[in-house]
């Protein structure tokens, strides 16, 4: 972790401890949320997309301004059928991605710029259509155990296999035991990575914050560095960093929230300019829609097939 990043984390922590949380809504003016609004938006997400749920988390890490059983949101076992990095090669082949002007747009990428055509002011407002699922592509197994290097993995495994005599022959067990999106031939075993995606509330930035916990094709914890393969490559190491999760153990990849309010403000402004009055309980749907441009191949659920705002037009 860069020194400046740690310094900033320390500063942010100190500010969070000393200041009280936001109590006045500034959702439309600044794109930020109060803790109460976060709960409201989270309740709406959980009721519309039941794969998401509230979690209590570690009691020692509880935030006092949230109910004990509503500390953060999580959706588990979300498939990621291919690496974001490999998709980008394809985009480059058809003209590359469009990096939007850093000043105005917070450096967010129009991930599908080259494919979806142009352009203009609203381009950083993520499309409200369901993101098309990319064609599946074979991914080879990566022996990605959390932490450690290859050499310190499973020292005595060979002995163990010799020593053990478990033989379970059974006509009713399906082989192979776990599957397999597209089984390519022979040993190049294709498996699907999965993610647990959590959303916490960042008191300093007053916005939600997304965290990624990856599992490899055999459901073994993925080292956070390998998670970056599933992040749009222009965000990896920049807007996506590896940090301590506020409620879970260990280091996890996270989309840094420093630009979230600016992007949300922009999305809200575009909606309002179209005559749609955004409602604060829809915040997380809009938010997850834009997060999809950072993690384009992780197929989490943020479907919103209802009116975005309260007004009709």
């Amino acid at each position: 972790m860069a020194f400046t990043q740690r310094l900033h984390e320390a500063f942010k922590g100190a500010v969070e401890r000393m200041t009280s949380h936001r109590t006045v809504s500034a959702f439309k003016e600044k794109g930020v949320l109060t803790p109460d609004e976060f709960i409201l938006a989270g309740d709406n997400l959980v009721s519309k997309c039941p794969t998401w749920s509230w979690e209590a988390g570690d009691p020692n890490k509880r935030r006092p301004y949230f109910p004990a059983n509503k500390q953060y949101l999580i959706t588990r076992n979300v498939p990621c059928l291919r690496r974001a990095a490999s998709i980008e090669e394809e985009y480059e082949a058809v003209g590359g991605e469009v990096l939007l002007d850093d000043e105005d747009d917070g450096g967010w990428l129009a991930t599908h710029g080259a494919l979806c055509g142009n352009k203009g002011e609203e381009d950083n407002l993520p499309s409200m259509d369901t993101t098309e699922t990319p064609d599946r592509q074979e991914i080879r197994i990566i022996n990605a155990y959390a932490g450690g290097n290859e050499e310190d993995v499973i020292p005595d495994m060979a002995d163990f296999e010799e020593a053990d005599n478990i033989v379970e022959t059974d006509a009713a067990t399906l082989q192979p035991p776990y599957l397999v999106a597209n089984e390519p031939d022979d040993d190049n075993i294709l498996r699907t990575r999965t993610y647990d995606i959590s959303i916490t509330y960042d008191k300093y930035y007053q916005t939600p914050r997304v965290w990624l916990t990856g599992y490899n094709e055999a459901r073994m914890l993925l080292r956070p560095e390998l998670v970056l393969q599933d992040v749009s490559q222009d965000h990896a190491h920049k807007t996506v960093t590896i940090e301590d999760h506020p409620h879970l153990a260990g280091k996890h990849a996270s989309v840094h929230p420093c630009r979230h309010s600016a992007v949300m403000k922009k999305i809200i402004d575009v909606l309002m300019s179209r005559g749609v009055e955004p409602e604060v309980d829809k915040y997380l749907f809009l938010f997850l829609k834009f997060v999809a441009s950072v993690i384009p191949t992780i197929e989490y659920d943020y479907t919103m097939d209802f009116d975005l705002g309260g007004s009709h037009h």
Partner: protein
Amino acid sequence: MSSFKGNDGPETSSGRDEGEATLKFATWQSAVDEGFWHRLASLKLDTLQLAEHPIPVTGFFAPCSHPQVSSHVQLLLESLDNGQSRNNPADLLGNRNRVPISGMLYNTNTLEGFYSLDKQLLLKNTAQQIWHDIQSGRAAEDSRLLNRFLMISHADLKSWNFFYWFAFPAIKLPIPATSAPPKIASEVFDGNEGAGVLSACNHWRSVTPTMTHPFFLLHISVSGLVQAKPLSEWESVKLEGGKVIAAFYDPCHLPNNPGWPLRNLLAFAAIYWHVHTLQVICYRERRGQADLKQCIVFDVIIPQLPDWSDMSNVPEAIGWELNAFRKVGPRSVNLSSSMDPYKLASAAA
């Protein structure tokens, strides 16, 4: 009744054969979250120390909710709570994405101890427990008892290597059950019946306490009313007439195979209900909602069993999970980067 084993072609395409074939079950998968290892390490240092007694542990799962990915049994920080922490158990209730599955953890002090555990015996004992719960009717009252797991582990707190191995014990029928290829539930139940099945399932999945009971019955009455009922109401719904379908939360996503939990349900049906045919719906979801296009229906034929009322006649069991290399063996994870105080200190310097 003799079973007819399909030829040795690819298992997933056994559906091509229109006849009866051995029903093949996709195994459970385990996934362990980092929080679990942190909690185990502190439990070992602060409480267990050198004690090696088995520890109750809770895994969590949800029915399959994606057509390309099976769901798995996940171990989290809360898995080792044992009611000792400040986490109010009520906080965990009402979370439909956390269907509990109870397990037993055998954590050994040494790697040698881990090697020398009698794994066959541990598996057999757990299966015996399931078998007793079926015989005694406890499983009819609480269907969660049909899903159990056991885990052996060795936590090396010097190198921060954790060795572990899961087993999901299933009672093995002496002659495997057979079935014709499954049908998609939306084709079996159409129109009003389909709508009834959907709403009965969604209701079961959304209210406390039924949402955490992974096995249930769907009763379609003579007048076409569909209701989800606990397993214990088998006799009474049978008397009412109509159709009865056994349902279970299926972690498996495959179009032609049921998941592992069906094995113990079939054992239950054979031992407790004494049935030889059973219609089963593998309950699956899409985006967290019941989806009959994902659910599959089997008409299962259960062969004649030996007399299991004799308690000494305990059936065989299987269920040790294969490792990441799909071999018989344990898994390991190294967490020194997040747990080793020296590494943490040097990373912070």
